[in-house]
């Protein structure tokens, strides 16, 4: 039962002096564009160092096997080969990576190369370094590995069977984490509901946002300084540092991550740390900088996939008026062969436990297993989109099975506009929103009544069907890392934060430097907008350092670009630092202009006395005093200003309770409501999207065009996954989509023109009213599945998979005799 009554929130609204407005809120064109449009970006594979060698990973061709022997002698004797590295050497030179999981999952011993066994097709067994890419690849083929084959486990539910072959003997089974999330009283609800809708099985498939740039790095273990320099496109370098530093025995002050432009990441590039550790060791061994360019096939096999999840025995109590009381489910999550960032996904979904709805009674029995498949890593919408798809399928199927209007049922069960801040059964606080309004706007954008009419007119017999689908979703942002303790109470993590520097340079120019590692999210532009507003300059006059450099940038352990949080954490840090700098400027100006600080305003790069623009000092004059004319100031002023201001933004979190699994797990809840119209060809099952609209609410918009771009991208990823993109293994654990030949990354012919509208409900909890966004919560998966469901006959099987290629839709339209529907209703 919930501890606090709903509405009594643990968070006070953020205090803020709002100086945003002139630039923030407008679609300032991006500062990043020029270099990228001119071919002058600096991506990881563009880096070069003298004496550099080229690395190639030798990967396992089989899913599960014992390594009997590895012979690198032929490879080493090839002309141009500098060095090799094997798992055996790695075991001697390094410690296993630390595990987030408690026991039993925490017992997993993972090194940067496989040591005793390979556990998925693509598992790295050795590294080769050579004078050219070509020779490195030639030599990799000469590494002889003898495998003793073991049976592969490729299904998560089967993997949990005590009789299943075990991947990690030290764990004792394939179950790496299990826990029960129980809120309200679901058994009471099931007993007292008018109807119980029972869904047998729902399957959320594996896919990846597949950033167009694969991983790449130049790693140099500098023999002179003993510093490990890592120029890469890893998107969460502080996490990488925390994992590989202790493994390599290198303190974090001698690990130096750098990146500039990153060609997309979407979470996948959090997972490149094992490779980076291997490259560091290889560099040390060879005494050379090591360059690595991941090929697309390596990327598909081993860079990381999104989580696959199976939901079993779903029971949904519903009252006759349409009120849905909650649900009960058994969830099995497939982490792949090793735990990379997992099992954090086993709690992160619970940021959105009831989805967008006022469900009170929820019971989730959650099991995470390993399988002989590529390890999963956070992929755009990480762990929440799987769960949100479940909640959306539930609402969609309740409407379908009990004959409720799908629009009205949603509106009735949504968290209502007057409910915010809304406390969920597990103690999360939804900050703001207006879901019914967003749904109305999305439906209006597609002209919903007209499509309903068209659907009716089309009838049966034309060979085509029309389906209209709705997907409502949340994009929870700014994690409370304390939720990790719900997984493992021993973990010393909680809260969140980000850091930034804002300074005036020698001639008074504004410089900003962030802790983040953007990959297209336009941090240079939006940071310049908020800083420009606070300091009274134009964004054109704000230089934001491109990329991240651990030698110069400021950071906290949470730094990086992930999980829909920059607008809150990154901009919060930049705004705080800019406010501090503003304060210093005012103090110096107060001295220089002989006026009270509160009478001074900043505009056009000048400080002036309110009402008298003649009494002004330009920032150049302020910088001159502080940097080069310091004796002209009173010592107490000179000693108290530096014009170099660092600020750490800290969201107001408390540590959640691991016992009850309650607490506020995320600061903001952006939402997206999608409306989708599909046409299905009855003969083939081919699905064509005829119309598509998104209503987005991420609170206050800092740059509407950039937000819209993020919405477009997340929508394309979701449509891709719903209809085209999948990562499937055969029973032997062979990946069937190991290149873009088989993995159909959506093209311009597959994504329709998208309509976007904005709802703006500012977050009361953030420094600027914005909510983090960008991941998008997988709404197209919800909407496309809902649209296909809408086109099916009442007696057809239900849409039970996120991925619906033509063949799967064909079988929904033409089920084999004896196929069950996958759903049932008990009514009282």
């Amino acid at each position, binding site marked *: 039962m919930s501890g606090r009554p709903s509405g009594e929130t643990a968070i006070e609204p953020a205090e803020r002096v709002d100086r945003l407005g002139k630039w923030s809120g407008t679609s300032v064109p991006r500062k990043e564009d020029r270099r990228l449009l001119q071919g002058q970006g600096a991506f990881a594979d563009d880096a070069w160092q003298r004496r550099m060698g080229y690395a190639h990973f030798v990967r396992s061709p089989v899913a599960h096997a014992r390594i009997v022997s590895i012979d690198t002698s032929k490879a080493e004797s090839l002309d141009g080969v500098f060095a090799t590295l094997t798992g055996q050497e790695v075991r001697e030179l390094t410690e296993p990576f630390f595990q987030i999981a408690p026991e039993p999952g925490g017992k997993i011993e993972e090194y940067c190369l496989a040591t005793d066994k390979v556990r998925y097709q693509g598992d790295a067994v050795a590294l080769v370094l050579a004078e050219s890419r070509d020779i490195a690849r*030639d030599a990799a083929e000469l590494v002889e590995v003898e495998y003793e084959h073991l049976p592969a486990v490729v299904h998560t539910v089967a993997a949990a069977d005590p009789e299943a072959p075990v991947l990690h003997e030290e764990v004792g089974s394939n179950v790496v984490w299990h826990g029960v999330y129980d809120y309200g009283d679901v058994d009471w609800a099931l007993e007292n509901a008018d109807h119980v809708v029972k869904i047998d099985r729902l399957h959320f498939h594996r896919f990846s946002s597949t950033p167009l740039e694969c991983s790449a790095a130049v790693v140099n273990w500098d023999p002179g300084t003993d510093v490990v320099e890592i120029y890469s496109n890893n998107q969460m370098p502080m996490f990488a540092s925390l994992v590989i530093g202790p493994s390599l025995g290198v303190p974090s002050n001698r690990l130096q991550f750098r990146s500039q432009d990153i060609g997309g990441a979407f979470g996948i590039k959090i997972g490149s740390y094992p490779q980076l550790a291997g490259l560091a060791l290889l560099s040390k061994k060879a005494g050379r900088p090591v360059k690595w360019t991941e090929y697309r*096939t390596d990327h598909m096999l081993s860079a990381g996939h999104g989580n696959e999840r199976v939901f079993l025995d779903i029971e949904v109590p519903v009252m006759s008026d349409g009120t849905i009381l909650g649900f009960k489910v058994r969830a099995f999550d497939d982490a792949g062969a090793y735990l990379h960032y997992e099992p954090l996904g086993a709690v992160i979904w619970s940021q959105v436990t009831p989805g967008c709805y006022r469900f009170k009674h929820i019971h989730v029995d959650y099991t995470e297993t390993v399988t002989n498949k590529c390890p999963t890593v956070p992929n755009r919408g990480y762990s929440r989109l799987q769960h949100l798809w479940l909640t959306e399928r539930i609402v969609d199927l309740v409407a379908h099975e009990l004959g409720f209007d799908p629009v009205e049922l949603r509106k009735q069960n949504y968290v209502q506009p007057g409910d915010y801040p809304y406390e969920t059964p597990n103690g999360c606080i939804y900050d703001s929103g207006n879901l019914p309004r967003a749904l109305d706007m999305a439906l209006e954008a597609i002209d919903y009544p007209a499509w309903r009419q068209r659907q009716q007119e089309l009838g049966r017999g034309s060979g085509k069907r029309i389906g209209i689908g709705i997907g409502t979703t949340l994009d929870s942002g700014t994690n409370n890392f304390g939720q990790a303790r719900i997984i493992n109470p021993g973990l010393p993590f909680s809260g969140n934060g980000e850091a930034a520097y804002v300074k005036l340079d020698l001639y008074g120019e504004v410089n900003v430097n962030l802790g983040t590692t953007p990959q297209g999210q336009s941090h240079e532009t939006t940071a310049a907008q908020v800083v420009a507003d606070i300091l009274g300059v134009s964004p054109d006059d704000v230089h934001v350092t491109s990329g991240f450099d651990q030698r110069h940038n400021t950071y906290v352990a949470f730094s990086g670009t992930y999980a829909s949080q920059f607008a809150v954490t990154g901009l919060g840090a930049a705004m705080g630092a800019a406010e501090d700098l503003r304060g210093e400027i005012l103090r110096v100006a107060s001295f220089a202009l002989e006026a009270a600080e509160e009478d001074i305003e900043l505009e056009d790069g000048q400080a002036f006395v309110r009402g008298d623009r003649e009494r002004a000092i330009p920032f150049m004059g302020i910088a001159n005093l502080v940097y080069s004319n310091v004796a002209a100031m009173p010592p107490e002023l000179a000693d108290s200003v530096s014009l170099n201001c660092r600020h750490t933004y800290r969201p107001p979190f408390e540590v959640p309770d691991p016992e009850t699994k309650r607490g506020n797990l995320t600061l903001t809840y952006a939402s997206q409501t999608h409306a989708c119209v599909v046409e299905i060809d009855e003969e083939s099952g081919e699905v064509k999207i005829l119309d598509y609209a998104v209503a987005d609410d991420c609170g206050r918009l800092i740059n509407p065009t950039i937000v819209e771009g993020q919405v477009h991208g997340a929508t394309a990823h979701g449509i891709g996954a719903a209809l085209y993109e999948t990562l*499937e293994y055969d029973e032997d654990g062979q990946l069937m989509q190991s290149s873009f030949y088989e993995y159909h990354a959506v*093209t311009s*012919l597959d994504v329709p023109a998208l309509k976007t509208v904005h709802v703006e409900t500012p977050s009361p909890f953030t420094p600027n009213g914005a909510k983090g966004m960008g991941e998008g919560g997988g709404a197209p998966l919800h909407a496309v599945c809902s649209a296909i469901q809408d086109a099916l006959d009442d007696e057809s099987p239900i849409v039970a998979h996120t991925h619906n*290629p033509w063949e799967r839709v064909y079988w929904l339209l033409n089920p084999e005799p004896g196929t069950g529907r996958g759903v049932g209703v008990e009514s009282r």
Partner: protein
Amino acid sequence: MLLESVEYTRPATVEEALAALASNEGAAPLAGGQSLINVLKNRVASVAVLVDITRLSELRNVDARSDGSLEIGACVTYDELDRSADVRRGHAILADVAGRIEDQQIRNRGTIGGNCCLSDPTNNLPPLLIALGATMNIQGGAGAREVPAEDFFHGYFSTAVEQGELLRSITLPALEPDAAAGYNSLTIAGDSKAIVRASAYVRVNGTIEEARVVLSVVGPRPIRHAGMEERLRGQPATDETVARASEAVGEGDDLSPPTDAHASADYRRRMARVVARRAVNEAMAKGGSGGE
């Protein structure tokens, strides 16, 4: 990804090319390279010598003859087919199909000869060329020979072209005034890999006098479907006829489609019937206008 070591030569004449191909068992012609380079990058097949034939002017012509037939050089690109006024005049369907192969960059490099010689069952052109009654002109050191398109494709990645030979050109006969061709594919996405394809040729004079129905991705090579053709011939040219005839497709063991990452054999078998019917319907709808 990177190729294995390889030798490269760019002969100036067809004769030199044939000599280069005959001199080494590991020699292979390199045309547009849109598949072969990939094969080499993936190191799934080994080639010792790449004989670049893309600049041989004899292979790059579209020759429109007075009888309405066309001779198309093996190294004519998809894009050139798409824009060729000669192709559009009498065989617009070839231009249309070539214009929907993957994407512009591939169309700018990929060649009609390469599309055939690779003999990948999912390729766009082989079923169409069979339906159009094309002749494949093969040149070897000892001389030239002609092979009907129907007999050209032997199986996965295997054709009538022997080691040391070259596909020089493809001849398309004129379409009779009362004949037309149709083409239909079910693809995984827009202008993408095929689940199944069909192409049809029909000649109609009140009733269907002649019919060729070709299916691909239903086995190792494109096949003419004799059963469906038989049920079309002599019948009134109606949708009902075609629908009834298409029931012959997938009826017995006429098809041996693969199961792969994109579709099951069962689904392909069912869809073969659908695309076959659609291709014939398209041909009939155009019928009598000499193709278009």
